[in-house]
C-alpha cells in the first residue's frame, strides 16, 4: 500500500461558488448548476500545491485534501 492525495467535497457545505474549478481546472469541473465534479483518482503530485490553494480558497470550507491509502500492484 502507498498513500496518495485525494480531494473530497462536502456536498452539504458546498454552495457552488465555483472558485475550486477556476483554480484547479485540471481536476475539478462544474456541473450545469455550478457545483463541482472531481475527477476520479488521486491528485497528481505536481498539482498538490494548487489543490491545497483551491482548498484554502473555498469560501465555505467544503473542499478537503487528505492522504488516503491506495492499493498498488506491488502490494499483494
Amino acid at each position: 500500500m502507498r498513500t496518495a492525495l485525494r480531494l473530497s467535497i462536502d456536498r452539504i457545505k458546498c454552495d457552488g461558488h465555483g472558485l475550486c474549478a477556476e483554480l484547479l481546472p485540471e481536476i475539478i469541473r462544474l456541473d450545469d448548476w455550478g457545483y463541482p465534479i472531481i475527477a476520479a483518482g488521486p491528485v497528481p503530485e505536481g498539482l498538490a500545491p494548487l489543490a491545497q490553494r483551491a482548498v484554502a480558497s473555498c469560501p465555505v470550507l467544503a473542499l478537503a485534501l487528505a492522504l488516503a491509502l491506495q492499493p498498488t500492484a506491488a502490494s499483494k
Partner: protein
Amino acid sequence: MSDTLLWYTTRGAGAVSLILLSGVVVLGVLSALRVQSAGWPKFLTTGLHRNIALMAMVFLALHIVTAIVDPFTHLGWLTAVVPFSSYYRTLWLGLGTIAFELLVAIVATSLVRGLIGQGAWRAVHWLAYASWPVAVIHGFGTGTDALSGWFMVLSIVCVGSVAVAVVYRLGQGSADPLASARSDFRARVARRPDR
C-alpha cells in the same frame, strides 16, 4: 525622527487605510454577490479582498504606532488597546481603537478559519459592518484633514462605493442557485422526530 514627519505619517497612513479598507469591504460584498466576468474570475475578487486587507493592516500599524510615539500628544500604548482610555480626544480615539480591535478579530479568525470552522468565522466576519463605519467616524471626528477638500472628495468616494455595494447586496437575494432548496432540506432534517 522629527515630530513633523511622525505626524504626517499618521495622517497619510490613516487616509491610505481608509482607501484600502473601503476597497476591502467592496470586494467582500462583490465576492458574496459572486460577481465575475470573462476577464475577472471569482478567485481574483477573494484574492484581492484578502491581500488588500493584509496590506491595510500594515498601514494601520503605521498609523497607530506613529500616532503613539509622537511626543506632541504622548498618547501611551494603552490608547491603542483600551478604548476611551485616552485623555486626548477620548471619544474619537476610542472609536479608532474599537474599529482596529474588531478588525484584528476579523483578520485573526480568517487566518485560522480552518481551525475554528465556517460558522464561527462567518459570525466574526460580520463585524466588518461594525468596524468599517466606526473607523470612518473616527476619521471624520479626529482627522486633521477631515475638513480639507481632498479628504472630503476621498471620503465621499469611499463611503459612496461601500454604500452602493452594500445597498446592492441587500437588494439581491442569495447568490446560491439552490438556496431555497437547501434551506428547505435543512429545515426538514431539523424537524425529523428521531433526531
